[in-house]
């Protein structure tokens, strides 16, 4: 009740009493979260749990960016979607479900292709949709208004495009990925740490890969990584704990084992975040059309150019 004093509404106090009770988190960080803006790019296996836990945890503005429609083969790992959503646009279906989780009177839904800035309004939850997906033309505009961006996409080209846009707009990027029984998680371009291109300078040519169609994924693996992406995004937004900036977590569900590796620092020669960045218009365009999750999850692709 006394938490209203910090600026939380009565509804927010009732809803978020448990996180407010965590001493090291508390009402001040909860308030900060309620007044912040997060963008989820890719609302699939990673984006489903990430968007869900960002919503229930109380983020003020949630952006959803995806051009894809729901396929029957998505359902086993994308619990945002109902059986009857098959064939419908993912973002519209996600809005429908996420809206049910919050107070209807507090909900605001915005369609947006541009970069207009949204204010967070105390006691409200806004969802903004970007239904064209991420393209070279819109990437900077799409990320510009958010405080943190979650990379929940499923193909290397979109991941590099998103990295470059986040560097140019100065946004921290929570990177998650999963294939088979394994998952990876890190935070790029945050607190002086490296970006994706500092570690892996160029995307691989997924098309040169001939084993991709053999690759699948178990649903709980992106489930786990997606929840952890929400966790790292919330840590970034509230300046809480130690994020995975400069560290990469690798998880293997087969024996429930993870390790967290120390990464190199920001690379001064990086084409994206380095001291003399390359003109981004010369950087990669994401694969046009519908990227198959299986093709995109290629994990043993041959590089298009030798090292």
């Amino acid at each position, binding site marked *: 009740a006394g938490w209203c004093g910090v600026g939380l509404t009565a509804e927010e106090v009732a809803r978020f009493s448990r996180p407010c009770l965590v001493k090291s988190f508390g009402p001040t960080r909860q308030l900060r979260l309620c007044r912040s803006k997060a963008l989820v790019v*890719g609302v*699939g*296996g*990673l*984006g489903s749990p990430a968007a869900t836990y960002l919503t229930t945890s109380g983020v003020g503005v949630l952006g959803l960016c995806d051009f894809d429609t729901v396929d029957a083969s998505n359902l086993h790992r994308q619990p945002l979607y109902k059986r009857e959503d098959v064939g419908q646009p993912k973002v519209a279906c996600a809005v429908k479900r996420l809206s049910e989780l919050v107070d209807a009177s507090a909900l605001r839904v915005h369609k947006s292709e541009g970069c207009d800035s949204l204010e967070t309004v105390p006691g409200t939850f806004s969802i903004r949709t970007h239904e064209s997906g991420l393209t070279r033309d819109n990437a900077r505009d799409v990320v510009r208004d958010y405080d943190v961006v979650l990379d*929940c*996409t*499923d*193909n*290397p080209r979109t*991941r590099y495009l998103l990295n470059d846009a986040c560097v140019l707009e100065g946004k921290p990027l929570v990177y*998650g*990925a*999963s*294939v*088979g029984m*394994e*998952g*990876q998680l890190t935070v790029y371009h945050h607190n002086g740490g490296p970006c994706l291109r500092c*570690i*892996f*300078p*160029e995307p*691989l040519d*997924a098309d040169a890969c001939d084993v991709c169609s053999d*690759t699948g*994924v178990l649903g709980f693996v*992106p489930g786990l990584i997606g929840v952890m992406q929400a966790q790292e995004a919330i840590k970034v937004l509230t300046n809480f704990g130690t994020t995975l900036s400069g560290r*990469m977590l*690798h998880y*293997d569900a*087969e024996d429930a084992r993870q*390790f*967290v*590796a*120390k*990464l*190199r620092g920001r690379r001064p020669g990086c084409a994206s975040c380095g001291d003399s960045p390359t003109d981004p218009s010369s950087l990669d365009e994401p694969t046009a059309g519908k990227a198959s*999750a299986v093709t*995109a*999850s*290629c*994990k*043993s*692709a*041959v*590089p298009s150019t*030798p*090292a």
Partner: protein
Amino acid sequence: MSTRLFVEFTGGLEAIFDNQKQTEQHVATESSQTPQEGVSMRTLLRHLGKQIKKPQDVQLMLAGDTVRPGVLVLVNETDWELTGGIDTMLNDGDCVAFVSTLHGG
């Protein structure tokens, strides 16, 4: 003389090595090195390259005399860029991991 290393493969790279994710490798010390110096990452890569049975698998992990782009090399859970790269010296009991970057979602 040989150096005993724990070598781990992730992200599909284990498929090249009989699907073994965690292996123990005994790498012969080269003549130019004294036993106390251990072996270099360069020597380990050569040692592993010889174990790849199918020639078409080599390019999934190696490119020239180093690893291919998209593979992160960790020496005792630290990016090898911080430990000396291909010249990193390894000693008995060290752990080396080859982590293939994942992109699926």
